[in-house]
């Protein structure tokens, strides 16, 4: 039962990672691509962590998994901010309709 429930959440992560990658390919500029990569991938990883936590055998493993998620979350928010900041400093104009 726990195996199946865990697998369900891990599979649920796939559409999020997929839409992050499709966004990277389809969106027009650096800023909009950052949206796709940070948001979709964070939630994808969140579902994988949640699925694995359900299957975990000890509570230390659960804490470790959520610690990994938290650190990746911080790292991706920070690097997203740094990339956008660097792009603005180089006067890269955000893409707009028309």
């Amino acid at each position, binding site marked *: 039962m726990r195996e199946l429930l865990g697998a369900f959440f891990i599979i649920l992560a796939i*559409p*999020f990672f997929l*839409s*992050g990658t*499709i*966004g990277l390919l*389809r*969106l027009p*500029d650096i*800023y*909009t691509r*950052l*949206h*796709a990569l*940070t*948001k*979709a991938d*964070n*939630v*994808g990883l*969140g579902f994988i962590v949640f699925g694995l936590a359900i299957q975990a055998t*000890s509570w*230390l*493993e659960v*804490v*470790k998994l959520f*610690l990994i998620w938290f650190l990746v*979350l*911080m790292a991706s*928010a*920070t690097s*997203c*901010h740094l990339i*956008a*900041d660097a*792009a*603005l*400093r180089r006067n890269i104009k*955000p*893409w*707009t*309709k028309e």
Partner: protein
Amino acid sequence: MSATTSCKLSLIFRRLVFFCSIWLVLSKADLSSWPFALPTVLISTWISLCLGGPEGHLLKPVVLLRYLPLFVLQSIASAFDVMVRVLNPSLPIHPGLVHYPLSLTHDGAKVLLANCITMLPGTISAQLNDDHLIVHTLDTSLPVHAIINRLERKIANIFRLEITSGQKEFQP
């Protein structure tokens, strides 16, 4: 012992406990790893104290925990938002930059605000200046100012800060 010394000692002690507990989690509570763990924990504590950080303003952990489910839900909502826009053949985006005048003055609170904005649907923080924040949004028709203002209040609450109720005028 003066008040500042005891305050500093309690800060060092809290950091030590924090890094020890992280080590316990990472090593699955395997105490035989102490010859490596001890110097690592001490160096981490020293580095974190050198880098400074939020002192004086203590976080309210209970308030932080109360907002946590909201942050998780909004993060999932923002991933759905990206998914719907990206998979739609017509790619419905109207991106643009928004300038937001900050009411928060505490550095730690500003960084937390910038990181949380990146988790909200349709917005990422692009540049954090002293008194204003540049936000990039996927849809300029979103009420970005109102959304950030609500978040700013919550973060002020977590950090026990008072913020001015009216918004400052800002000319870019």
